[in-house]
C-alpha cells in the first residue's frame, strides 16, 4: 500500500506519545488492517495511510461531532472515547489518543476467509 502523509513524521510526533507511535507501527503490521487515519481534535487529517483517508477524515469528523453531542445529552463531560462501526466485511473504529483521534479500518476475519474460499 502506498503511504501518503498529510503531515510529515516530524510534525506528527507532536500529536503522539512514544507508546502511541509504537502501537500505530504495530497496527500497520497487522494484515487485517486496511488503513488508518489520524485526525486532529477539530477533525482535520494529520496523517493517513492511503488515498482513501481523505474521505474518512471528513466523515469521521462528523461522526465524532455527533457522538459528542449524543454524550452531552446524557450528561457526559468528556468526548466519546471509542466509536466502532461494523458490517459483514469491515470494522471501522476510532479511539481518542493523547492529542488526536485515530481511525482504523479493519477487514474482518470472516471476510478474509471468504476471500480465500472464493479462490480455493
Amino acid at each position, binding site marked *: *500500500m502506498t503511504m501518503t502523509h498529510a503531515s510529515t513524521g516530524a510534525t506528527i510526533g507532536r500529536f503522539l506519545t512514544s507508546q502511541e507511535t509504537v502501537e500505530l507501527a504495530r497496527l500497520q503490521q497487522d494484515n487485517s488492517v*486496511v*488503513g488508518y487515519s489520524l485526525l486532529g481534535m477539530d477533525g482535520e487529517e494529520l496523517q493517513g495511510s*492511503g488515498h*482513501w483517508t481523505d*474521505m*474518512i477524515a471528513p*466523515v469521521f469528523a*462528523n*461522526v465524532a461531532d*455527533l*457522538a459528542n*453531542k*449524543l*454524550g452531552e*445529552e*446524557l*450528561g*457526559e*463531560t*468528556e468526548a*466519546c*472515547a*471509542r*466509536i*466502532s*462501526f*461494523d*458490517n*459483514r*466485511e*469491515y470494522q*471501522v473504529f476510532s479511539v481518542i489518543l493523547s492529542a488526536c483521534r485515530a481511525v482504523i*479500518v479493519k477487514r474482518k476475519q470472516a471476510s478474509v476467509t471468504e476471500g480465500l474460499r472464493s479462490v480455493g
Partner: protein
Amino acid sequence: MSAEVSVEQTDPRGRSVTAILDKIARHNSDVLGCIATDGVESYNNLPEAYELVDAEAMGEYVNNMFAVMQELEASEPDFENLVLEYEGHTIVAKRIEGGALALINNPINRGGLKKMQVGMNLFLNPLAQAMKGPEVAAIRVEGPEAVSAVRDEPAAAPKRRLFGRLRG
C-alpha cells in the same frame, strides 16, 4: 373509501413499539433505556432519571451517524452496528429499516457487548414490523394508490466503491 386506521403502531401480533422497547430493556440488566427511530417518528422508554434528555434528538444523532457512514462504504454492505463508549455510558445501536435502534447502557465490557448485540437481534423484526404498522395499514386501505407511490420511487443513484479499491 373510508376505513378506520389505527394510529397506534403495532406489529402483526399487536405489540406496540414501546412494549417491544420495554422487552428489550428487560432482556438485559445493563440496558437503562432504548430509543428507536424510523427517521420520522421517535420512540423511547428512558427511565425518569433521563426525563430531561432530548431522546428524539439522540435518535436523530444515531440515525445521522449511520447516514454519514454511507459516504464511506458506498456499495459495500451497510454498516449495521454502532458502539459508542463514554465514561459513564455505552450506547449500542443497530440500523433498522430507515432508522435506528439505540440502547443506552451502563458501561459494558467486550463480552457483555457481544451478548447485547446478539440479544438485540431477537427484537429487530418485531420492532421493524411495529414501526411500520400504520404504513402497512395505509397501503391496505388505499390499495392501488399506495402501491403506485412505492413503485414510482426513483431508483437509487449508483454508489461509489471505497474499500474495494484497496484490494488490488
